[in-house]
């Protein structure tokens, strides 16, 4: 029995092939949160699932950069803020036609009220990619 005040969140991690702004492609973990009845809440859409790693092999947790993400906002009266914010990575780099299409899919995902976007960020030096 978890202590009062803690919440249990069901989730599943899937591997996604991600195209970096820098030019490489790498498998990354995407956490998908689920409701109590097992329904997936994170806006995992068709264009993201196209990039799913086809095996059950473990994707390393550690990574040295933050992928570009869309942050979908849902109404959730159970949270103090009244909302849930779930991140989904945008697997396609800008100028790939699927980049915008995947964002549109997230915007149109059921019950999504608003979507924010954050581009790819490297706080470790990017020099190693250009040596």
């Amino acid at each position, binding site marked *: 029995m978890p202590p009062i005040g803690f919440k249990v969140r069901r989730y599943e991690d899937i591997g996604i092939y991600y*195209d*970096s*702004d*820098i*030019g490489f492609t790498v498998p990354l973990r995407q956490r998908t949160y689920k409701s109590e009845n097992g329904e997936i809440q994170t806006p995992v859409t068709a264009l993201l699932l196209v990039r799913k790693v086809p095996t059950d092999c473990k994707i390393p947790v550690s990574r040295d950069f*933050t992928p*570009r993400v869309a942050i979908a906002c849902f109404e959730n009266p159970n949270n103090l803020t009244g909302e849930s914010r779930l991140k989904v990575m945008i697997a396609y*780099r*800008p*100028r*790939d*036609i699927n*980049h*915008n*299409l995947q*964002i*549109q899919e997230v*915007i149109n995902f059921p019950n999504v009220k*608003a*979507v*924010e*976007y*954050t*581009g*790819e*960020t*490297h*706080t*470790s*030096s*990017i*020099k190693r*990619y*250009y*040596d």
Partner: protein
Amino acid sequence: MAVYSGSYYCDGGLEQRQVNLTVFGVNVIEGRETNLRGDRFETDSNFDALYLPKVFMDHVLPVRGCCSVPINGLRHVKAFYANSLYLTIPCPFAGGTITFQQFMQELTNNRRLILVELHGETVGFNLRTLLRN
């Protein structure tokens, strides 16, 4: 603070013309990793010439633009030239493009710079209006 103006290309594909692309220095006082806090300081054109990529200088005009990009935060790099001193340089080129790669290549080839960080753009309520296919 050196003010330049030029086109900014959003990740979603929209081109924003003649917007401010301001370069400034920061003297870090405290903080770790992403939570750096410090004092901004102005740079001049002679100083900028040592650090800014040629592809950036060819892209901009040394005048103030008529407006700012209507997004929360521009894509930019933090280019450290000392342990607690860095330049914030807007990157007007979208990821994966040839000019983006040239911009990054020139920065990473600059021996005066010891660390180059890339920070992605942040977009809020108007994300839908910035998507162009």
